[in-house]
């Protein structure tokens, strides 16, 4: 809900005057069409972009992503074959082994970036979108959506995927490594999440969230 009463005077005269988040210059935002972007006149930051993924479709894709997330974490991601002995490992195994080597800080970083942050982003975005789609006035929607955005820098599933590929080639001489079922679920999830976060109109979601007109 975008009321006009909460806007400073200068912005009441024109409904679309905003400040750039990177260089703070005040400027008029033109109405933009499909696939277009509004760029800051001073520092070229993308202020708004018009995107078209529907909330309902995003929810469906996220539910699929949730299934992939559980497959990716519960099944082995990589298998080792060395003279008849096989050994499997999951994403969480690496974290457990790090704690066994007394590297708890490193284990925590890997846990947050490979498991916790992506999971919080999927659940958080589902919470916000389901509430908007079905008109629930669920609590803390704004905070949750802010965290979905904040965690994007710390959610590193795409980089983990690259790490798996590097690990595969690194051991070529020592032992044979085979990709497990979780790898394919993980790869599909990375693509799916990248698509959702690129195609979802973040500013449209913000505009649809309710918030008080005056600061409290």
């Amino acid at each position, binding site marked *: 809900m975008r009321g006009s009463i909460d806007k400073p005077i200068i912005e009441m005269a024109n409904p679309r005057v905003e400040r750039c988040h990177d260089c703070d210059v005040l400027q008029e935002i033109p109405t933009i069409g499909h696939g277009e972007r509004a760029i800051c006149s001073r520092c070229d930051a993308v202020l708004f972009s018009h995107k078209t993924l529907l909330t309902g479709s995003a929810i469906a894709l996220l539910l699929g992503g949730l299934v992939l997330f559980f497959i990716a974490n519960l099944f082995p991601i990589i298998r080792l074959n*060395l003279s008849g002995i096989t050994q499997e490992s999951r994403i969480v*195994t690496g974290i457990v*082994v790090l704690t066994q080597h007394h590297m708890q800080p490193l284990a925590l970083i*890997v846990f947050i970036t490979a498991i916790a942050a992506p999971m919080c982003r999927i659940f958080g975005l589902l919470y916000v979108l389901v509430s908007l789609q079905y008109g629930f006035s669920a609590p803390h929607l704004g*905070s949750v959506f*802010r965290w979905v*955005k904040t965690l994007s820098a710390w959610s590193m599933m795409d980089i983990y995927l*690259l790490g798996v590929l*590097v690990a595969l080639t690194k051991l070529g001489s020592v032992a044979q490594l085979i990709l497990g079922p979780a790898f394919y679920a993980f790869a599909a999830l990375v693509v799916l999440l990248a698509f959702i976060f690129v195609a979802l109109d973040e500013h449209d979601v913000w505009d649809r969230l309710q918030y008080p007109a005056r600061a409290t």
Partner: protein
Amino acid sequence: MTEIVPLRPTVCRACRLVNDVVHESSVRQLCRRCRGALRHRKPRSLETSSACLLAAIVLFVPANVYPIMTIVELGDAQSDTIASGIVRLIESDMWPLALIVFVASIVVPILKILGISYLLVATHRKSQARLVARTKLYRAIESVGRWSMVDIFVVAILIAVVRLERIAIIEPEIGAMAFASVVVLTMVASHQFDPRIMWDHAESRMDKTERTIE
């Protein structure tokens, strides 16, 4: 008598809603929409950013000197640093992957440290030069920083799958801790840097020049 408090329209960095905030206030103010901490500018932005950057520069040395992991195969131990890991990828003819890891683990951290240093020094000196280019540099640093974590994940994956006692085992080494710290610290340093401050500084200097001319 009620005191008139000067309000200042401030854009929320998270959700981009324009809020009116009390200027120079020590009170914690929250964005109406996303409840995130809202300040006209990030408090102690340059100080926090410099501190994290300095810590990252110090840790950059052990991160590259000490091994990140050790491969023990039938009693034969071989330690890998970040650089020797890349050399080994090249030796096994995996040069596209070697190139990716080289860029992610060596080029990106170095450029990030140099880039943030440049931003901090230029802002501190209230430079007016290349403001647009500097803002773009800030955005580039923010977006590529995460990719340096790839070597840490390689270690986390290999130690998990290769743990056959007496045959082959891979152990994490202290260099991995230092390297992960460098990545996290440079990420925090760039998050803490508020690009609006360099525009403020440039503008304040421009105002001063105008006044002297008058």
